[in-house]
């Protein structure tokens, strides 16, 4: 594999992959928050 093919593949797949994975994780966080919403009284009891 040529140097530039390698470099551009890493840029596109590597950075693209990082963005996709972190977007997915961001979505998971939103879903987690929806599934387990914050309830003030219950949380204060949990400490």
């Amino acid at each position, binding site marked *: *594999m040529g*140097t*530039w093919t*390698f*470099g*551009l*593949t*890493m*840029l596109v*797949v*590597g*950075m693209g*992959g*990082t*963005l996709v*994975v*972190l*977007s*997915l*994780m*961001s*979505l*998971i*966080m*939103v879903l*987690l*928050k929806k*599934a*387990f*919403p*914050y*309830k003030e009284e*219950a*949380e204060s009891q*949990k*400490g």
Partner: protein
Amino acid sequence: MLEAIMSGFGGLAAGIVNLQWSNAVMIGIGLLLLYLGAKKGFEPLLLVPIGFGAILVNIPLAGLMEEHGFLRIIYDAGILTELFPLLIFVGIGAMTDFGPVLENPYTFLLGAAGQFGIFLTLLLALALGFKSMDAVTIGIIGACDGPTVIYVASQYAPHLLGPVSVAAYSYMSLVPVLQPPIIKMLTTEKERTIVMKTGKKSVSKTTKILFPIVITIIGGLIAPMGLPLLGTIMLGNFMKECGAVDRLVKASENEIANVVTLLLGISIGATMSGPVFVQTQTLVILLLGLLAICLDTVCGVFFGKLLKVLTGGKVNPIIGAAGISAFPMAARVAQKEGFKYNKKNYLLMHAMGANAGGQIGSVMAAAVMLSVLKGMGII
């Protein structure tokens, strides 16, 4: 008799006679690192042992990095096996509160944007003629995350471990110096004064406990090569959030982290032997590392500007600069810069979200990179 006495004196002078100019230069650099760490307070926990290690390894004939030398034993046990950076990650996970990023999940994306510097620097290193894995290792300085840099370098370019580690830790400590001019250059005064509201607390304890488990499983399935990094940081965080193992949490963030930091630092210093370190290549690596961290900030701020447009002006682009792994330093810089231009502006919580996102972002960038390399059959 006289001959024996002369031989004896000769033995005492052997160290001085065998001192090469490159050793002397590295002893000077070791002293500089000690000064920066001990006197100026730049990452002292790392720079002090690194500086002392650099002095030790450059004293001729001591053989500290030869077989059975005590630095070699520590290096082989903790760096070659990747154990030290992973143990440090357990401590980092135990010390990190991912609450701010969970409060504002979009800030996670700023942590992704803050990793652009890795890949752009990789391209630059290739253009300058570095081999593939050397370029990957140099690019990873842009993760702005010492343990990640050491983990990747120790596996794929151990000969570059010294310069890339020193670059990563030195530039991390220089974030408060490097970022403000870049922020000022890339944002308008109007953008810098945007006030970001702090919402009500909205993250439940259950969410905080489940977060490290879910992220480990999803992240591990997508990028298994980086699971040691992601898994250890999330193990530390799970121990902290579950509240059932306080003793382990305290040990991870204190005793274990302290001992490993000392051993890690002295091992990195031990790689800085004069004849190996004093080369033009080292200077190029240090410059590329500096560029990587500056590019991270540039891309983070631009992504912040994009979010500002997408949210109708609700996001202050300054928080984009916090999307790197230097935690919590980058968040403090964002808060300070925002406050400087608008005394009613408190960006800290938003910037902490971006900064925590940057911590996971840097680990994920390394994990994705390693998995892509594996997929391409390069490693």
